[in-house]
């Protein structure tokens, strides 16, 4: 069960270990396979162009992920398809998934720009990164020309817009809290709570010290030995090894709506000294600079160096600094939940529900400064709503226990951590069990202050579950069926 001393970094797609911070320009191409016979050779060639973790690109990078629909269109055998995880196979839009992910009403997949029932089914996701827009556009054009000649069609191109200082559109610094994975750390810094590699990469021990469900294939299905042996020791070959699952959600953000609400709440409550930014910070759990409320409870202190170096239980058990329902306290509760809050057990529990976030922002900012004070100067400056938001992308080995759990059990759940009607104020669904769920509680003395009637600030506009294969797996998926690999037999509809 031991992890090999050195990972095969040239087998792992680069996005797993880095977010390509040095390549600020990025876009996502959603593709459909039109003609498999022509697409295969092109895709196989593409695997050579893809950026793997062994090399740190400084000009451009490409990564590739595939949906379950894509796998069926690649004519992967049914017996192999069935080995993929249930969540990946079901997709994001079953009636139950809509309910738990909050994709109902305005968020319903029927209205999505992509990934829903009314738009073309996505097969592949090409993620392109460049040091500047020119490089990116050249890369994308080159890819697009190649693919259209080779039986592939571009369904959509999702652009991104880098904002200064890693800010997201509401004006807060993002990309701070990330799981620490010792194997990815080239500097070997000591860290108190590393998350097991198997939580983010298939084929390695996970948070329970076991192997997460992953696609294994019979040796006969891989006659050219394109895949590595099963690290768990069976005679099967591991299609999952060094790959992982990628969750994509396109989330529109209503920036003027958000700050209007903050202003309104500040006027309605005398407790928080009538400051919209303060209230917004309570919702997020961090100040606009990214400093956590636990680190600096009364004012923003941008000088804090390690903004991820804190826990909740000892310093803020009651939520007086960072409210119990704040976005970062519920999407990564650290040591604040049972079993035994404050203990290593609690941290280990939280660490079995971590997400490696790799998303990017899209749309022009409400104000170039991204300074909430400037936003508030004139909230009505836009005549028509502007489409902007977050292409939320995260990687995880177990979509059910990680992404879906975080989104449902922690973010959407109005009863999270003893609360009653408080969904995640940023991303939580505003309706559950047929009742409106629109409160946010700010714990304070002598009694809490409750914000009422919080509207939704985020709307789901698209999404999907993807498999982010290893280099070997890509080669396997894009190879024509070997002798022993019969073309897919369709037994009724796929689930």
């Amino acid at each position, binding site marked *: 069960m031991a992890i090999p001393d050195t990972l095969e970094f040239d087998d792992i797609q680069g996005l797993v270990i880095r977010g390509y911070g040095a390549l600020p320009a990025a876009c996502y191409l959603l593709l459909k396979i039109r003609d498999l016979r022509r697409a295969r050779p092109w895709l196989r060639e593409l695997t050579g162009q893809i950026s793997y973790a062994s090399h740190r690109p400084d000009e451009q990078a490409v990564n590739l992920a595939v949906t379950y629909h894509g796998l069926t269109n690649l004519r992967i055998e049914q017996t192999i398809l069935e080995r993929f995880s249930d969540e990946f196979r079901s997709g994001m839009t079953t009636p*139950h998934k809509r309910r738990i992910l909050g994709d109902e009403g305005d968020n319903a997949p029927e209205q999505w720009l992509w990934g829903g029932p009314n738009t073309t089914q996505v097969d592949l996701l090409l993620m392109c990164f460049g040091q500047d827009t020119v490089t990116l556009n050249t890369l994308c054009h080159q890819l697009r020309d190649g693919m259209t000649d080779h039986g592939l069609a571009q369904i959509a191109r999702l652009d991104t817009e880098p904002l200064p200082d890693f800010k997201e559109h509401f004006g807060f610094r993002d990309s701070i809290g990330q799981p620490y994975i010792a194997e990815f750390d080239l500097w070997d810094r000591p860290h108190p709570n590393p998350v097991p590699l198997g939580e983010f990469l298939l084929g390695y021990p996970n948070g329970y010290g076991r192997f997460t469900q992953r696609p294994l294939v019979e040796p006969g299905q891989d006659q050219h030995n394109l895949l590595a042996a099963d690290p768990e020791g069976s005679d099967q070959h591991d299609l999952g090894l060094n790959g992982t699952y990628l969750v994509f959600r396109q989330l529109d953000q209503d920036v003027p709506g958000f700050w209007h609400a903050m202003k309104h709440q500040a006027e309605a409550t005398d407790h928080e000294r009538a400051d919209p930014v303060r209230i917004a910070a309570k919702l997020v759990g961090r100040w606009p600079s990214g400093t956590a409320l636990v680190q600096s409870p009364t004012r923003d202190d941008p000088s804090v160096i390690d903004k991820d170096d804190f826990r909740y239980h000892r310093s803020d058990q009651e939520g007086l600094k960072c409210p119990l329902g704040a976005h970062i306290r519920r999407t990564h509760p650290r040591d604040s939940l049972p079993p035994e809050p404050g203990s290593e057990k609690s941290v280990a529990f939280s660490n079995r529900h971590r997400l490696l976030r790799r998303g990017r922002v899209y749309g022009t900012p409400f104000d170039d400064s991204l300074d909430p004070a400037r936003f508030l100067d004139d909230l009505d400056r836009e005549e028509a709503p502007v489409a902007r938001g977050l292409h939320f992308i995260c990687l995880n080995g177990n979509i059910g226990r990680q992404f879906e759990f975080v989104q449902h059990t922690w973010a959407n759940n109005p009863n999270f951590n003893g609360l009653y009607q408080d969904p995640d104020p940023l991303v939580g669904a505003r309706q559950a069990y047929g009742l409106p769920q629109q409160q946010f509680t700010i714990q304070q003395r002598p009694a809490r202050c409750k914000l009422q009637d919080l509207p939704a600030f985020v709307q789901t506009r698209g999404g999907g579950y993807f498999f982010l294969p290893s280099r070997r797996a890509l080669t396997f998926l894009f190879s024509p069926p070997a002798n022993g690999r019969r073309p897919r037999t369709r037994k009724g509809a796929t689930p």
Partner: protein
Amino acid sequence: MPEGQREFMKRVIHGVKVALASLHPMPQNALTIRMPVVASREPTLRQVLADINDDPPDNPVMPFSVFSQLHFARFLLLDGPNDPETYGTTLIFMANVDGSATQFIDEMVQQVAHGLDQVLNACRGYPPRRKRTRASRRAYLRRHTIDSQAFYINTVGRSARQIRQEDELHQALQSFLSDLDAANIVTAQELRSIIIEYVSGNPELSWALTSPNRPSLIWRAVEDLRFATLMALGGLILFWGWPILLVWLLVLRGREFSDEEYTHRPALSRLNQLRATEDIAAHNPFAAVGYVKPGWLRRTNARALLAAAQATLRHVFNKGDLAGVPVLGLDGVDTIHFARWTLLDNDRRLLFTSNYDGSLESYMVDFIDKVAWGLNLIFSNGVGYPRTRWLVHEGARKEQRFKDYLGLHQIENQVWFTPYPHLTAVNIANNEAIREGLQGGMDEAQAQAWLRRL
């Protein structure tokens, strides 16, 4: 023993149990009625159940909200055992009620007789139309009532009425606090007395200033005596029987190497069908049925462990923290409202049902992370359960195998009713603590801690 005789013995034992329970009744009880279904009437039955499930509290057939003493209720259709492979589908009705199960049967016969007829018309032996009287219906339901071997109650003695009332109290206090101009209120004690004043000045809430109906002192004394007797009995068994128990344990340990472990996964279409009715409230109903490993050793083992579990659930884990034993470093689960284990078909099958907070994923995570040892003890007697070591280790800790095992055994509830769909067990306990805090004196720190609950 011939089937008839065994059936008779069972009825006698059940009768004795009911009689004993009426001398020292539990405040809440589990009612399970299992009735054979006539094959040709199953489709109609399914339709009636679907109609009920459209709106469990207020449907025209069986509006569950008329029962003020009812917590959760469900109907499920259970296929017969694989062997003999004949049509053996049964309809199971389950309810968690305040007061005795027989009282609840009487209540059903009185309040929803017509609805009962519509449902039970599909059941073998139900009185024919002409012969349907209160007495004949009641007799039928009583005759088909079966015992559960273990029953977990989140908090013994907390009635459905109390839960609803305290929910109202909580909501009223929330509005009061939100409207209150708190600018000049500095201390917690000050604020607390303002709240108490509000409650006592409000005739609709003043009940909250009294304690909820708790089991009497005598009842609790008898309960303690019962526990002491069981402990003594357990001590004697250990003292005299330890060599046998040791051999028993070693034999089971041996079996652990050879017992079959399921390695297949449930069909995705089946899982999605199960998920389709889940997560419509703050809590969910769970139901799963499986075969007990064959042979008297395993069956006796299952019986013995369920009996031990029953004693522990009733006397130790009766305050909202299932299986939490801090001194042993065991973490409890505070998300389960009720759970029960029911042996069926001459101990060949075990039916497990519960009402738990959150999604199935979070429920399984609780099982795996916190109470795997307890689940292992009982469910390792089930065919195909993930392999355990020394009865408590591994098993449920094998995350994927365990989740697959549950998926292979979970069954659908055709009808499920909850009277308080927006509340978790933690909310319910908090509401009670809020009510209790309205009484008595508190220093500043205590008042502060109490206000945190609001």
